[in-house]
């Protein structure tokens, strides 16, 4: 198992700059969530990791050495645009991709069967892939990418097209791979799945890295703090309005006073002032969600 390091990689296509400057590292066995809007440069970054595209600038290394074909064969790839041989049967297809990654026969078929069972594809094992539903094709693709127990598995939107049950099955499979020591890099628009699986995140927008770190680090770097106070009382609202830098937010699901404060605001002092002013039944400092961090990082309104 090795460490993947991207250092200031950039890639253009003619006049179009897809990736301007992206750097991050993925330690052995860890999981990185790559976030960004459509066209942000996520897929290009993933393609550079996989050696499909060569960076114009910067470097991609695995354990300190450039990623060559021999290293790449130890990686797994689940591209956003799925690719399967339509006429090939499920078992043959998975075994074939296993052989391409160096799994010799008859181990290829044995492992294919294990993945078929794990992903609930047993009844489709002898069916041509073209006859499968989109979700099942997606699972076959995952098995193709993971059959050889890759050291690094790159998954571009792995949950797209999956219903909640199949998404959970896939999530379980990814957790098992992670437990086995596989490093994961995945992009997804389903933030809750990413949040559950990843230790660290990298937000890209317009080809530039906007935020990077663990969720704790990203929250710590969040420029404001949100506090929620109950009950909704005028004397409490007055104190909050008088706090320097405070900005009232729309009320949440239940009636509460929600305010955004500067990160360096003294919340303890604020709590003391509120308690002195009247009955406070709830005072909560709300951490920004991954979605909030993401939206702020890409420049959209949180």
């Amino acid at each position, binding site marked *: 198992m090795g460490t993947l390091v991207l250092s200031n990689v950039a890639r253009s296509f003619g006049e179009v700059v897809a990736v301007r400057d992206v750097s991050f590292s993925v330690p052995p066995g860890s999981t990185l969530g790559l976030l960004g809007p459509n066209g942000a440069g996520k897929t290009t970054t993933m393609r550079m990791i996989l050696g499909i595209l060569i960076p114009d600038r910067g470097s991609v290394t695995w354990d300190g050495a450039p990623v060559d074909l021999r290293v790449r064969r130890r990686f797994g*790839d689940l591209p956003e645009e799925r690719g399967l041989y339509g006429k090939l049967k499920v078992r043959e297809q998975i075994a074939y991709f296993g*052989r*391409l*990654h160096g799994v010799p026969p008859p181990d290829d078929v044995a492992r294919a069967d294990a993945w078929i069972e794990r992903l609930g594809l047993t009844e489709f094992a002898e069916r041509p892939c073209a006859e499968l539903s989109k979700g099942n094709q997606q699972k076959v693709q995952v098995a193709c990418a993971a059959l050889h127990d890759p050291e690094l598995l790159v998954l571009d939107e792995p949950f797209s097209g999956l219903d909640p049950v199949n998404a959970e099955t896939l999530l379980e499979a990814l957790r098992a791979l992670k437990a086995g020591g596989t490093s994961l890099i995945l992009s997804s628009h389903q933030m809750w799945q990413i949040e559950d699986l990843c230790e660290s995140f990298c937000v890209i927008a317009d080809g530039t890295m906007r935020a990077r770190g663990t969720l704790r680090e990203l929250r710590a770097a969040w420029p404001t703090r949100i506090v929620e106070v109950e009950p909704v009382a005028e004397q409490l609202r007055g104190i909050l309005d008088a706090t320097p830098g405070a900005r009232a937010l729309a009320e949440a699901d239940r009636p509460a006073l929600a305010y955004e404060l500067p990160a360096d605001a003294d919340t303890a002092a604020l709590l003391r002032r509120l308690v002195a002013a009247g009955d406070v039944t709830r005072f909560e400092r709300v951490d920004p969600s991954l979605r909030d961090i993401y939206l702020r990082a890409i420049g959209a309104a949180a």
Partner: protein
Amino acid sequence: MNTLAVVFNAEFVRRIRSRAFVAGTLIGAVSIVLIAMLPALVGGMLSSSSKKIVLAGDPALTATARTLLKRDFTVVAMVPKLDGPPSAQFLDAHDKASAVAVLARSGEGLRVTAYARDPSAFRDTFAADLAPIQIALATGAPVQRVAAHSTVPVEVHDVSGRFATASAADAAKGIAYLFVMLLYLAILLNAQSIMTSVAEEKTSRIAELLVATLDPARLLAAKILAAAATGFIQLGVWVAAGMLSGRAVTTLFARGDEAASAPLFGSLSVSSGEILAFLAFFAVGFAQYGVLYAAAASLINRTEDLGSVAGPLVVPVVLGIILAQIGLQFPNSPSVLVCSLLPLISPFVMFTRIAVSNVPAWQVVLSLAINVATAVLLAWLSGRVYRVGLLLYGRPPSIKQIVATLRA
């Protein structure tokens, strides 16, 4: 197991199992058998039905004519006189004859008036067969004597000593024609199957997965080798079908009716040198077209676009076939010699020359060397286009972009 072997095996099995390959091979073999058998079968039937004739006129003339016409016709009846032009019923009544020939003296010669079901079929044969009567009537010489001397024995020898007789040389042309057509089919079908395979991988985005795992050049090489292997198998089946049906034609028809035996297959004899040349030119021809078709397919985004990129690549193949026809007639003309050295075209033209004439060994070696060098060059150029084209999506690249890719 290296990736080349993995892809080769997968491609080979996929091709061998594909309906297109099985159907193409079987249809090809059946067509070859039919081409071999039909002339003999149909020719035999036609000849037996069109041979029967009725002679009318002076009994002395018709008796002499009967002897002279024996070679080409069966005289089923001789009548001294007709009551007007004969009808089809008259022919039916006389053993379903094909024609009635009315013989009459005309001045110092002979005049023949024929009434036939197929008017175009008799004139030349009657004129040639009955010429001794015309000469005998004009000169007074006995008909048998004139007939005995009317044909000049001509022997044509091949100065190279390759063909024992002129008919053997004719047969060689037939064989060459057949083999060039097989070459054409095998090269085109297998090159197009590579194109379809590349297009499938490109349009379904499998290419992206493959390129992440193995070198595109290896991927291309494995595909071409697999297609070549299936091509060799296909050719083997076709050649075997041709040779077996040729032997069958000889056995079935040659004894009973020599004329019905088609010289193309009846005298089919192919030397091991020719087979070797055939396989060698298939290999180099296929390698050249295979890489070109693969590169072209890597540039398309939809399988519907295959036709537009494949079209221009058919031109040299068709040109090669046309020049091979000329090569059959003039195998050693300077222009045919030049064409037999040109890449892409020469696999067809040089093989034709080898089949019908004695080509100096240096020309064969030079042609093969040029073709191998071209195949290597095309593989290199196509490999670059393929490498880039495979991951190029969206608008098809312009010629300028392709040239830029090759220069990069």
